[in-house]
C-alpha cells in the first residue's frame, strides 16, 4: 500500500536512506531513538520534503502526484504539526466537513465529547494529552485506508494510550484492506499493536522483523568470558561488553537455550533489542 524505494534525503548534518513497505491489513511500526530519522521518514512519505533520490508510492502512485481524492484515503498525525491553536474543535469540524467528502460531523463531535475535549475552547489552551487525542480523532474522522501516525501517543497517560491503541485496533478490524504506519518512543505500545517493526538508527533501517518473530525468537544472552569463547557466534547479531562479560543479541534464542544449558538466555523485549542493535557492536 505504501512503498518507499531507495528513499534518500541529505541534510548537512544528517542523511536518510531507507526502503520500507506497509502492506494492507498490517500495522507497521517505526522505532528508533530521538533524531534517528523517524519524522523525516514520515515527512518523505507525505511529500512534505523533497527527496534527493528514490520515491514513495501510495497504492502504486507516486505521492508527488496524489490528488485530493487520493489524499482523502490517508489520515495523518504529525508530532510537530497540526491545526492552528487559535481554532476550536467546532471550527475544525466545520473545516473538515468542507475538506472530506465522507466526514461525519456528528460522529466526530460525539467522539470529541467522549474524550472530554471542549468544543468551544481554543486548541492552544488544551493540555498536551488533549491535543494528542484531538490529532488522532481528526485522523480517524473520515474513511481512510492508511493512517500515518508519528508519535500519536506522545504526552498521553497509560489509560489514554491504551484507549487510543484500542481505537486503532478497532479501525483495523472494521475493514481488511486498511493499514497503519506508526512511530512511538514507547516500545511496549508498538509491541502490543504492530504486525511488523522497522528499527531506524542514524537515518538507516537497521532491522526489519515481524513483531512475533522479534518477541519469540530474539533473545539476550548474558555470558561470562569463558562461556562467550565457547559460543557458536553464527546467530549473534550484536555484542556489548559488560562487567560480567558479554551481553549478546541473537535472533535464534532457542538454538542457544537448547545447546548451551546453564547459559542465561533472556526473552528480548523490544527496548532491549533496540538498545543492542543501536548500542551494540556488530560481529
Amino acid at each position, binding site marked *: 500500500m505504501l512503498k518507499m524505494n531507495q528513499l534518500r534525503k541529505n541534510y548537512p548534518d544528517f542523511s536518510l536512506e531507507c526502503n520500507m513497505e506497509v502492506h494492507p491489513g498490517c500495522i507497521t511500526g517505526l522505532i528508533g531513538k530521538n533524531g534517528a530519522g523517524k519524522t523525516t521518514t514520515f*515527512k518523505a512519505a*507525505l*511529500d*512534505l*520534503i*523533497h527527496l534527493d533520490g528514490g520515491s514513495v508510492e501510495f497504492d502504486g502512485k507516486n505521492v508527488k502526484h496524489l490528488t*485530493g*481524492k487520493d*489524499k*482523502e484515503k*490517508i489520515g*495523518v498525525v*504529525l508530532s*510537530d*504539526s*497540526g*491545526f*492552528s*491553536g*487559535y*481554532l*476550536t474543535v467546532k*471550527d475544525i469540524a*466545520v*473545516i*473538515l*466537513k*468542507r*475538506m*472530506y467528502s465522507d466526514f461525519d460531523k456528528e460522529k466526530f463531535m460525539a467522539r470529541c465529547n467522549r474524550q472530554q475535549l471542549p468544543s468551544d475552547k481554543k486548541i492552544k489552551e488544551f493540555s498536551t494529552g488533549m491535543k494528542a487525542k484531538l490529532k488522532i480523532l481528526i485522523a480517524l474522522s473520515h474513511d481512510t485506508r492508511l493512517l*500515518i501516525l508519528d508519535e500519536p501517543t506522545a504526552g498521553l497517560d497509560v489509560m489514554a494510550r491504551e484507549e487510543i491503541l484500542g481505537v486503532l485496533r478497532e479501525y483495523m478490524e472494521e475493514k481488511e484492506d486498511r493499514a497503519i504506519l506508526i512511530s512511538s518512543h514507547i516500545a511496549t505500545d508498538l509491541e502490543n499493536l504492530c504486525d511488523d517493526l522497522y528499527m531506524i538508527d542514524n537515518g538507516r533501517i537497521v532491522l526489519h522483523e515481524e513483531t512475533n518473530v522479534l518477541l519469540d525468537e530474539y533473545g539476550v544472552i548474558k555470558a561470562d568470558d569463558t562461556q562467550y569463547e565457547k559460543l557458536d557466534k553464527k546467530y549473534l547479531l550484536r555484542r556489548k561488553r559488560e562487567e560480567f562479560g558479554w551481553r549478546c543479541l541473537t535472533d535464534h534464542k532457542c538454538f542457544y537455550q537448547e545447546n548451551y544449558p546453564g547459559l542465561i538466555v533472556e526473552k528480548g523485549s523490544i527496548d532491549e533489542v533496540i538498545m543492542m542493535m543501536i548500542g551494540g557492536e556488530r560481529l
Partner: protein
Amino acid sequence: MRGLMVKDICLMKGQAKFMLLVLAITVFLSYNTDGTFAASYLVMIASFLGISTISYDESDNGYGFLFCLPVSRSQYVAAKYLFNLLLSVAAWIAGIGVTVIIWLVHPGESGLTELLITNLFFLPVIFLIQSLMQPTMFQYGSERGRIVLFVMIGVIVAVCYLVGKLCELTGIDLSSWMESLSQYSVGVILLVFILLSAVILLISVPISVKIIRKKEF
C-alpha cells in the same frame, strides 16, 4: 479549497471585536478627514489581517499538517489569494459605504461622484498590495516578510524619486506627460490601472505557487 477558506474565516472570527473597533475608529476619523480615508485605512487593516492568517498557518509548523489534508500546494496559494482579495475588497466596499453615509449626513466640499471615483482607484491598489504581499510572505514567512515588505515599499518609493530626479536632470518633462493623460476620461485611466494591476496579480500567483512548492515542512 473551500475548507481552506473556511479555516481562514474561522481564524478571522477571533478578530471580530478588533474589526468592529477598527470600523468605529474609521467612522470617527472619517468625519475630520478627506473622503478617501475610510477606504484606504480599512484596506490597509484588511491587508494586515490577511497576513495574520498566514502567520496562523505557519505557527507550530502548521503548514506540514495543512499539506497532508486533501489540498495541493497550488490550491492553498489560490485559496489564500482569493481569501485575502475578498477580505480587502470587503474592507474597500465598507470604506466606501462609510464615506457615502458620512457624506450624506455631513456633505463636504467634494461632490459624491468625485469621491466615489477617487475611491475606485483603490481597487488596483488592492491588487498591487496582494501581488507584492503574498509572494513576500510565502518566501520569507510572516515575521521577516513584514520587514521585507516595508523595505520593498521603501525601495519602490526611492526608485520613483530617483526616476523623477533623473528626468529632471535629463530634461524629460514628466508633468507634461501627466497632463497629457487628462485628455483621456477618468474611466479609461481607471480601466487601464485595473487591467495593469490585474495582470501583475496574475503574474504574482504562479510566483507564489513556485515559492510554496519549493518549501519543505
